[in-house]
């Protein structure tokens, strides 16, 4: 069964079109990540799915049921916000129970579900505290717990980790992944962080300017990007684009080379001067000026000793190169 089906969804604010003809299917149990630069419409798309914004045109089906005219609370969804959005005057327990109370569920069922969710998220010790007495990570766990107790058909996450520091972000990411496995629920997750996208997703949806650029599994998107935008956006450091003429190819084409496929090689085809070296311990990123104002990034595995201003030659694996035309489409 499909958890979510969007057909031809458009959304405009006044004259500004924010979403343009979005078609998308989310299968049951799938973890789908919307990713894209800021302003690409990914959060708006999430709000349209949740019902917080109305569509301008198009259809939304959740769990096989058209929800175009259904208010957010009755769509069978639960949402986790970037700013946690906990109710400041309620305790953790009351925060989690509120939605169930609104649905007039029996008291013992509410207590049971809250207990279950708080055990799952190790919140049992904090149930009687108020949000102001919790740390950022705990608050976000409460927000996730508030979604879990509702047992929704579809979870919506709106950049839930953006307010957390790096270490906590990683922990919470793992927690969300574990939760997804445990619940087997369908989830949609919005982020601009490609690491979150790559690590969590079953399916990534890359958005740009309100359009879907590509849909696919993380590895599909990484290995086989549909166009230059996707190729550049996914992968860190991002892909190098070298005019084909520099490598003896035809005019108007670009060769895309991922930094890890370009290695230092004394007989390499790309020569230049090192402009910067980033030593990350596990990897070393070498930025090389290869002429024509192009800075080429090579990612060497392990620690590599390179000096700024040193002349260096790089070679790459031709089988791993991607060719793009001048409009950025794959050839």
């Amino acid at each position: 069964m499909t958890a979510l089906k969007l057909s031809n969804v458009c959304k405009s604010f006044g004259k500004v079109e924010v979403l343009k003809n979005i078609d998308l299917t989310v299968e049951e149990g799938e973890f789908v990540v919307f990713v894209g630069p800021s302003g690409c419409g990914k959060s708006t798309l999430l709000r349209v799915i949740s019902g917080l914004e109305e569509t301008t045109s198009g259809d939304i089906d959740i769990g096989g049921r058209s929800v175009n005219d259904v208010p957010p609370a009755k769509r069978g969804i639960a949402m986790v916000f970037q700013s946690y959005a906990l109710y400041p005057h309620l305790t953790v327990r009351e925060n989690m129970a509120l939605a169930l109370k609104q649905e007039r569920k029996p008291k013992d069922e509410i207590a049971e579900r809250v207990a279950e969710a708080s055990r799952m998220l190790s919140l049992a010790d904090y149930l009687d505290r108020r949000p102001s007495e919790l740390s950022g990570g705990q608050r976000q766990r409460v927000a996730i717990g508030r979604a879990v107790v509702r047992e929704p058909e579809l979870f919506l996450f709106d950049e839930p980790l953006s307010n957390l520091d790096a270490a906590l972000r990683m922990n919470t990411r793992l927690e969300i992944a574990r939760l997804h496995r445990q619940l087997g629920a369908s989830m949609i997750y919005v982020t601009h962080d490609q690491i979150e996208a790559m690590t969590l997703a079953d399916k990534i949806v890359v958005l740009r300017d309100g359009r879907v650029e590509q849909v696919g599994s993380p590895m599909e998107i990484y290995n086989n990007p549909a166009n230059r935008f996707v190729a550049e956006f996914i992968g860190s450091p991002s892909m190098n684009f070298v005019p084909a003429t520099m490598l003896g190819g035809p005019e108007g084409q670009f060769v895309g080379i991922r930094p890890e496929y370009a290695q230092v090689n004394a007989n390499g085809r790309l020569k230049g001067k090192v402009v910067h070296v980033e030593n990350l311990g596990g990897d070393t990123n070498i930025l090389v000026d290869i002429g024509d104002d192009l800075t080429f990034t090579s990612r060497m595995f392990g620690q590599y000793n390179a000096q700024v201003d040193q002349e260096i030659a790089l070679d790459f694996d031709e089988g791993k190169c991607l060719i793009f035309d001048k409009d950025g489409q794959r050839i």
Partner: protein
Amino acid sequence: MSKARHNPLNSFAAHAALIAYTLIALFPVFVILINSFKTRKAIFRDPLALPDGDSFTMIGYQTVMKQGDFFLYFQNSMIVTVATLFFVLLFGAMAAFALAEYRFKGNMLMGLYLALGIMIPIRIGTVAILEMMVSTGLVNSLWALILVYTAQGLPLAVFILSEFMRQVSDDLKNAGRIDGLSEYTIFFRLVLPLVRPAMATVAVFNMIPIWNDLWFPLILAPAEETKTLTLGSQVFIGQFVTDWNAVLSALSMAILPVMILYVIFSRQLIRGITSGAVK
């Protein structure tokens, strides 16, 4: 911490300015208070002296208690002020929420229209208001005052509150919507507690001019049973003779409730329960 912030000279200057302002602001209140306990002669002989064994008297307070129905006036003032504050805060907050939260055609225009009242003094319309009150039979009722003061207070309330409501996190309101709260519940349970400091500000701004107003009580509700405290105190001010003891005593007593209300609201001004709701 920067050195500049700890400069003792700066800090001294700041305190000196604040203390000077406090003294200037409190001086008239102080003079009213001490003179209300003095004999008439002592008031005129040396207005700034503290009451001593010779000059101390409670005659002013006794006159106030005997003459006129002081407690009724007091009660009228209280009813008018509290009811007005209630309506101004309720309707002001509701209008502000609508303006801040919902996108509709003419939102901007409506906001400007509601704020127009800040610039136009309501007293310009006194004659029309009086005619209206006469034809609706509200003259000499407390409702006349409550309605006029509510109208007078709403523009500023809407203006201030809508600014604050815009700052309440959208995510919080949306979380409420997803959890199935009605718009009224979101307004009363989520938004209002978060803008409580702004509500207190509006309340204080409105309370004092209403409590002290003489104009509208004199025109709309001068009857004995609807007199407010300020109007009631006027009986002691005559064209030729003024009973200063009584006037000062009445004023001293009139200050009290405003102070109490102010203390209640200023607590709200300081208390911040918002921390922890959103980052």
